[in-house]
């Protein structure tokens, strides 16, 4: 043991530094997206990051058992609010995704992303070891995932619904269900895609079709993808330079500060900036997976890996969308895209993972974590 006091060595310095680096970079990009202004986005984003970091650190002090115990009640509450949103939407007419609490707009589907992971993890943690290869190990999890998935899908919010399903299924996979189930289902889903496609809303169908061929409608719905690729492609290796992006500054790139912030970044920082950013995210995921693998507690390791994967889905879906590999589904890039709810969700995930890390270090007593 060194002379540095224990609480200080225990404090997750490195991971905080990593997050600070990503969020700091994001703030710089938002500063540029506002044509060299800290308003309206950069300052707000920095303030939010500080608040949510404090929240994540607070979460990390909470004993793991609390999360485990509150997983099901929290799930029930969020599911109820999803119903509520649907009801209000039915009355108000049209697409409804949030509840107005008076002081803020609450978007329950956003919370469902981490909650579904905790809930499914909790379910498998409670499941006796021997039951894992039985039917009993499957249907409750499918119900747990299916209800919120269906509710979000009919909002309609394809992106969030996909993420909820993906987060839950990942936990099922990690819990040890037979591999052939996943392979079989994968094949089944692949063959069912044409049928599913016909159930999509027209605008969703359009997005998918245009994703397949963005040039077919370069001024209409394909405009986002086309302009995003132009921004990334014209950046080259070194980028056009800070504040020199033309796609973003001349308003050719739509949503340049939210969903397509990566394109704004790539135009000015080039492949170099993009690769470094992706590397930083990869380091974050490596940390999350390692925390999961180090943990001995079943709930903890499933939760840690599941939450890491949830953040991964944010990043992967957003980047694939921005680079023209996925349809435009409205998933923001964590820490980079301007917006409060996505950062709140991601910081919730980070906080819980930090709590798991802390708990497992307490148990093993080693400081060797990264």
């Amino acid at each position, binding site marked *: 043991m060194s002379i540095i006091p224990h609480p200080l060595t225990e404090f997750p310095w490195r991971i905080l530094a990593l997050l600070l680096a990503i969020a700091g970079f994001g703030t710089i990009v938002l500063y540029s997206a506002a044509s060299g202004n800290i308003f309206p986005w950069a300052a707000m984003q920095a303030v939010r990051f500080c608040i949510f970091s404090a929240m994540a650190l607070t979460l990390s002090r909470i004993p793991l058992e609390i999360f485990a115990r509150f997983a099901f009640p929290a799930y029930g509450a969020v599911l109820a609010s999803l119903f509520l949103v649907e009801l209000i939407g039915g009355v108000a007419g049209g697409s409804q995704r949030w509840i107005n609490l008076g002081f803020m707009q609450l978007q329950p589907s956003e919370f469902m992303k981490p909650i579904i992971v905790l809930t499914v993890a909790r379910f498998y943690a409670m499941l006796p*070891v*021997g039951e*894992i*290869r*039985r*039917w*009993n190990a499957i249907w409750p999890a499918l119900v747990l995932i299916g209800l919120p998935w269906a509710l979000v899908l009919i909002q309609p919010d394809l992106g969030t619904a996909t993420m909820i399903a993906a987060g839950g299924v*990942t936990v099922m*996979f*990690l*819990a*040890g269900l*037979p591999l052939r189930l996943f392979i079989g289902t994968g094949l089944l889903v692949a063959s069912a895609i044409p049928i599913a496609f016909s159930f999509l809303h027209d605008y969703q169908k359009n997005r998918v079709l245009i994703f397949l061929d963005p040039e077919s409608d370069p001024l209409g719905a394909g405009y986002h993808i086309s*302009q995003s*690729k*132009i*921004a*990334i*492609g*014209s*950046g*080259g*290796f070194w980028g056009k330079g800070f504040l020199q992006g*033309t*796609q973003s500054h*001349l*308003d*050719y790139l739509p949503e340049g500060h939210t969903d397509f912030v990566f394109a704004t970044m*790539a135009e000015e920082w*080039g*492949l170099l900036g*993009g*690769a470094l950013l*992706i*590397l930083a*995210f*990869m380091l974050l*995921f*490596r940390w999350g*997976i390692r925390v*999961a*693998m180090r943990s*001995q507690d*079943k709930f903890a*390791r*499933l939760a840690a*890996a599941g939450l890491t*994967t949830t953040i*991964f889905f944010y990043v*992967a879906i957003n*980047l*694939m969308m921005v*680079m*023209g*590999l996925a349809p435009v589904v409205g998933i923001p890039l964590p820490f980079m895209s301007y917006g409060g709810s996505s950062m709140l969700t991601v910081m919730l995930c980070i906080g819980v993972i930090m709590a798991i890390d802390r708990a497992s270090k307490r148990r093993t007593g080693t400081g060797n974590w990264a």
Partner: protein
Amino acid sequence: MKFLTPKRKIITEAAQSFTFTRRAMVVGGLQGAIGALLVGRMAWISVAENEKYSLLSESNRVNLTLIPPRRGWIVDRNGRPLANNRTDFRVDLIPQRIVDAEATIRHLAQLLDLEPDEVDRIREDLEKSAGFRPVQVADKLTYDQYAAISVRLPDLPGVAPSQGFSRHYPAGATVGHLLGYVGAATAEDYKARKDPLLITPGFKLGKDGLEKAFDRHLTGKAGAKRVEVTARGKIVRELTTRPDTPGKSIKLTIDAGLQEYAGRRLATQSGSVVVIDCQNGDVLALASMPSFDPNSFSDGISHLEYEMLSKDDHVPLRNKTLQGLYPPGSTVKPMVALALLEAGIGPQETVSCGGAIRVGNTLFHCHKRRGHGPLNMRGAIAQSCDIYFYQMAQRIGMDRIASMARRVGMGQKFDLPFPSQSYGTVPDPAWKERKYDQKWQVYDTVNATIGQGYMLINPLQMAVMAARLATGKQLMPNFIHNARRPDPATVGATEEHLIVIRDAMNAVVNGGGTGGAARSSIPGVMIAGKTGTAQVRRITMAERAGGVRGNSSLAFKLRDHALFQGFAPFDNPRYAIACIIEHGGHMIRNEDAPMIASDTLSYLFDPAKAMEKLETLEKGWGGTPAQRQARQMASFRIAKAIEKGDVPPPSDNVADNAGNAAALSPAPSPPARDESEDDAPPPGANVTGAP
């Protein structure tokens, strides 16, 4: 609860933990793989396809606007401009930059003296405007107005004064048909050429006359302005500007002074004058009056002005020099005489004119009822005796006359830089057989020898005929200064024969003949020529019995055409001229063809004296063509307004407003004059064989 596998693996906590570790590594590995895939994809877009996307980004960012090139000048043989470019000052509003629209408009209205309806138009345009597209406030400003706005720019945000170029024709209407005019390209033009320049605001191309024929030559290379624009079209800054390359100029054989003189000298008549240089066939003047003013056509003519022009029975919209066809009348007699000489008829052989002869069962009259008595060739041409030619022509037959007619340029289509020309007819037996499937009759020959019947000519051909009779060479009309051309072929007449003709034509003017009005006022310059009268109606036996009606008692459309062709000086021809006055009827001596031709030729020898005479005459006609046309326009405007019932007849300023109203609403209303629809000059059709 039987499930999946019959032989169940025994699962322990440790095994499950192991499975988790293994699967977590798979998940982590997949994440890493996708991360690598994303970096690879990004590298592909940004490095491998960088060039393509950089180009797309540039074409997003940079907006190229073409600057219309200045059009090449058209200058006369002495370098005087016939068509040039005038600096055009204009003011626009950029809606998005305006702070207080109402105050700005009020300020501008006061500075530029804008009419109230113009101000309303600007307000309306401003409301409809998309924000970045400029709204025109006014164009054709004077430099003082332009300067007045320019110095106040700091107080007038959103006001954008600018200067461009517009086509200007200093001689106005007198060059209208010669040069044509310019105008914005039509959709068909653009479809045919697909040149983006055609749809650039402010670009104009030649629409008629020489402007159209030499359009490519006169059109320069467009300049370009590169500006950086946002996705919404807002201009951020100008990047580079490449200036335009003005078009090449064209030097014509036209003498600007003569052209304008001829146009003005045509007075109030509907007529044309063509002057040709006898040395080489250069066309010195090609005037057709009245004419549209190419300046107002090039700026976009008002509905009202166009309506007035198209209803005028003096057909200002037709280029009479090339598209007007007239029976040449007696002006063909020198040509027929040349054919007679060629056929071996001696110049001294005489015919006794008794006032009429019978051909077949028709009685053909001479224009002189009592007859001329015995006449030789010189006398017959000088007195324009019809009987002499009736008899002589019957002796040699139509084919020999037609052959000579063709050699002096009748019926010939010339290679001219004009979109259209009508080239008339030289009838002969073969032609009649072909055209009407009828046999040539003796009375056809008789009609043709006095330039009636089927024979038709345009004023340019008549000038060519005069030049060829004067020189004996088949001169070709030409418009391009110093154009290379082969030496002209000969007409095929001997010099002795030509001297006989020239002498006879001199006698027409200076020897007591029919063309005394063409006598030259220039000492030492004698004009030779031949007068002509072309009937456009049939004179019935009954009318002839009761006395042929005078032209002044006839409707305009029924009056005779008055013609004159000639050259000067008669003994050494330098210039040839043709003048045709449509339905002139020889009613006013100083507006008749011989004197117009004579005065026009005198301009070539003594311009100052000729101008002096013209200015005196113009006082009697009510001013220059421009002044007369302006007055005509004003009265037409008032007539329209009264007709529409917008205003009570009197009071000048009220009528003026009503004129504006009429100009704004182009709704067709019944024509005021009933004959205005039928504006085609009827030459050939109405003419029949009995002069």
